[in-house]
């Protein structure tokens, strides 16, 4: 596996060198489109270069690099968040920030969060081994988990003192991760190895998101937070933050609106799901929205997470 993961390490900015042989291109995981194959067969490097760089949907090696570098940022963010919550961050400031809420987390939930954090660390390690670069040099100190861009007084500050607020925040982070991977997967279509790895990380984030929803529902979150762990409806309502008292500030509602934007979609592949045949009685729009998760674009993800990153993501 590790051998396959060094593919990206071998890709030069000058990809012309890599187009010497058809076998090289295949080994790098590029699909050999007819234009590319023609270019290679004619030993016409400019043609092949053009074909590679103008692939539909921008699915070039540069896209793969961009996707895994972006994924690494998000994984570092999640990893540092959970480490701070657990009190194992390399930053004592981050650990101290979460001391109050940490004491409120029931033992059963602690082990769940530990398992989640273990995976986020593994994701950071995996992406790094695959050639992803921490281009912003993110460390534990690069984040303001209050969502205040470094002020420490952002709208999510109550996540550090209230368990219900913390869990809703974690839910939002996991669901954002799922949607981010889903939105980027298409750019990996020409690299089967990286694509498969991304899918396998994406489904782990979905398991995380499901568990957090179940934890929340078991501790009083409203019924829109389903025991099946799925996302019901869209916008801030899909966050199911009704058990947070006092109610979260408008900026948090706005953030949830961004995180769950479009999740109320009931049309898939041009078909209205609620109009499909053979649906059981009781199948409603909510069920239709739960059955399918939606992607987010990179820009949408950046808009959501930027307040938690001190350095700029754009």
């Amino acid at each position, binding site marked *: *596996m590790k051998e396959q993961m060094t593919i990206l390490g071998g890709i030069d900015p000058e990809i012309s060198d890599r187009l010497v042989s058809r076998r090289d291109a295949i080994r790098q995981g590029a*699909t050999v489109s007819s234009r590319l194959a023609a270019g290679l067969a004619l030993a016409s490097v400019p043609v092949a270069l053009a074909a590679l760089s103008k692939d539909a*949907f921008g*699915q070039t090696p540069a896209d793969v690099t961009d996707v895994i570098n972006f994924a690494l940022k998000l994984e570092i963010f999640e990893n540092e968040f959970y480490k701070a919550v657990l009190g194992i961050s390399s930053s004592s400031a981050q650990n101290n920030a979460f001391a109050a809420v940490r004491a409120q987390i029931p033992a*059963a939930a602690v*082990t*769940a969060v530990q*398992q*989640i954090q*273990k*995976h986020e*660390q*593994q*994701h950071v*390690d*995996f992406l790094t081994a695959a050639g992803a670069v921490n281009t912003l040099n993110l460390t534990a100190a690069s984040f303001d988990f209050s969502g205040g861009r470094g002020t420490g007084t952002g709208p999510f500050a109550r996540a550090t003192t209230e368990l219900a607020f913390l869990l809703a925040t974690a839910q939002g982070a996991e669901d954002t991760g799922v949607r981010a*991977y*889903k939105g980027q*997967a*298409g750019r990996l*279509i020409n690299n*089967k*190895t990286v*694509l*498969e*790895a991304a*899918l*396998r*990380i*994406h*489904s*782990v984030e*979905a*398991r*995380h*998101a*499901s*568990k957090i929803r*179940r934890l929340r529902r078991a501790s009083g979150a409203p019924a829109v937070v389903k*025991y*099946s*762990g*799925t996302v019901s409806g869209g916008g801030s309502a899909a966050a199911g933050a009704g058990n947070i008292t006092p109610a979260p500030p408008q900026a948090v509602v706005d953030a949830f609106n961004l995180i769950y934007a479009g999740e109320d979609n009931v049309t898939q*592949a041009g*078909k209205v*799901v609620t109009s*499909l*045949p*053979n*649906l*059981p009685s009781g*199948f409603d729009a909510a*069920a*239709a929205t*739960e*059955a*399918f*998760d*939606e*992607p987010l674009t990179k820009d949408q993800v950046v808009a959501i997470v930027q307040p938690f990153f001190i350095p700029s993501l754009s």
Partner: protein
Amino acid sequence: MSDDRTIVVERAEQLWEASTRRSFLKALGIGGAIVMMPGIFAACNDDDNGTGPGSSSPVTLDLSNDTGIVNYAYALEQLEAAFYTAVVGSAAFNTMNTEQKEVMTDLRNHEVAHRELLAAVLGSAKIPNLALDSATVATAIASTNSVLKNAEAFEDLGVSAYNGAGKYLQDVNNLLLAGKIVSVEARHAAAIRDLREGMGLSGTPPNTRFAGDDVVVGGLDVKLEPSDVLARVASTGFVQTPLAIGKSPTVTSPTPNQAPPTTP
């Protein structure tokens, strides 16, 4: 009564008979007529509705193109949808607590939605309904414990299947659609695993079964190649219709499998 110029088809089985085909061609060749008696249509499978009796003829999947891969997913969704539909209608369902009922109802809804959406996307290219073994289904839904055990196996298998097959899709729109489904299957899997832990199955450590070390290794979730998924399906005994791969994916880049437990 048939003669050389007029063929009368009274039974559906006649349509499968070579002698009928020869006589069709002969009759048509000499300007004859073929009369279909109304009764033969009563014997036809209602293949359009996804809930009719299943086909017992073998189903072969061509995984060298997206249609075949989507049909592969459709086969799995048929199986899951049928299972959860049976669960919700079972005596065991009535004994479940509120949470379990909510989860089972949701999973039934979602898997049926997956099945019907894929059927609609495939249109006339979809494989027939798969016939299920009623005895196997009955055993699986006999108790809450067996329901949840089988549900866990199905969901982890679904995640494995999509994670393993996604890389073979050639159209990015199909990849996106698969992506929208697989994360829901993973949510399901986590929920079922968590439910079972709550009923006494131990997680090591506790409260980790949702994404336990038996399915998430090095941070990566399970994946199986299509042939391995179908082998598992066959071994469950749920599906009577023989389901086989006719053509493998064109660009085979099999990565090492990471299988969910055979016995959850």
